[in-house]
């Protein structure tokens, strides 16, 4: 159904999205670990700017998800790959808590880690390498193996 011009556009979309995402992280100050730590330091000199980042982002994603769900597919008619899990599980909470400890220690979460590592400095590169090892470790020790286990665990 889609002609060649529109399918070429589809291939550009992930690059454009990644680029836009990176610009947003840089402009917002998310790439500055000290700013993140200041946001998380509610008992110290609290810097609320990260709340503006999340507020601005959700102001766009909320109508976008509502529209996408109502449409039921992408603008080009492809299926939406949305998570269908709805149950709250120990994995969700324990994983998020472990992530919170790492984020609170460093002030770095995955997106900003990749953006500042692209600058080539040793410390962010070491962070990204450790993050990849952590993800690989998860795949080895904790990832559900079968479809049944996936739906039971997640």
């Amino acid at each position, binding site marked *: 159904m889609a002609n060649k011009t529109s399918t070429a556009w589809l291939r550009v979309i992930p690059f454009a999205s990644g680029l836009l995402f990176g610009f947003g992280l840089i402009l917002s100050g998310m790439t500055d670990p000290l700013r993140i730590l200041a946001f998380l330091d509610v008992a110290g000199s609290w810097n609320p700017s990260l709340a503006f980042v999340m*507020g601005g982002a959700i102001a766009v994603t909320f109508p976008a998800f509502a529209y996408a769900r109502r449409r039921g597919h992408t603008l080009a008619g*492809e299926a939406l790959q949305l998570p269908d899990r709805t149950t709250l599980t120990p994995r969700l909470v324990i994983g998020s808590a472990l992530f919170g400890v*790492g984020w609170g220690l460093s002030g770095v*979460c995955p997106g900003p880690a990749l953006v500042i*590592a692209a600058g080539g400095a040793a410390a962010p590169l070491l962070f990204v390498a450790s993050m990849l090892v952590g993800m690989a470790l998860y795949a080895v020790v904790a990832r559900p193996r079968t479809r049944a286990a996936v739906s039971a665990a997640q």
Partner: protein
Amino acid sequence: MPAQYLHSLLGGLLIGSAAALLLLGRGQIAGISGVVGNLVERQTGVGGWRIVFLLGLIAAPLVVRLAGGEIAGVLSLSWPLIVVAGLLVGFGTRLGSGCTSGHGVCGLGNLSQRSLVATITFMAVAALTVFVTHHLLARG
């Protein structure tokens, strides 16, 4: 300070627009830990879109620098702590099915209860971690 808030708000709008573009254009969630984690695990049926998305993401700082802009971001932490934090972020985001972008930006925008619980959990634990390291331990 107000200028910083404005930059944060505009940056947030860009991040949200990036997520909306990927959702409406390709039907995918712009969750960084999910994108990277699926590549690490070499899941079957993994789309090349993930690699292309990450190329765009790391092209952003290169474009900003070429245009003469500066990128705030110094990670001043001891190397052992960088390793520990990186391992926890990698393992935790995969076990918890998402990070600040997947749960915080996309999941909350999608009114997901799981994402709300995840976001409250990692924000509260991160704030507690900062309280312990910056206040309790610093007083020593």
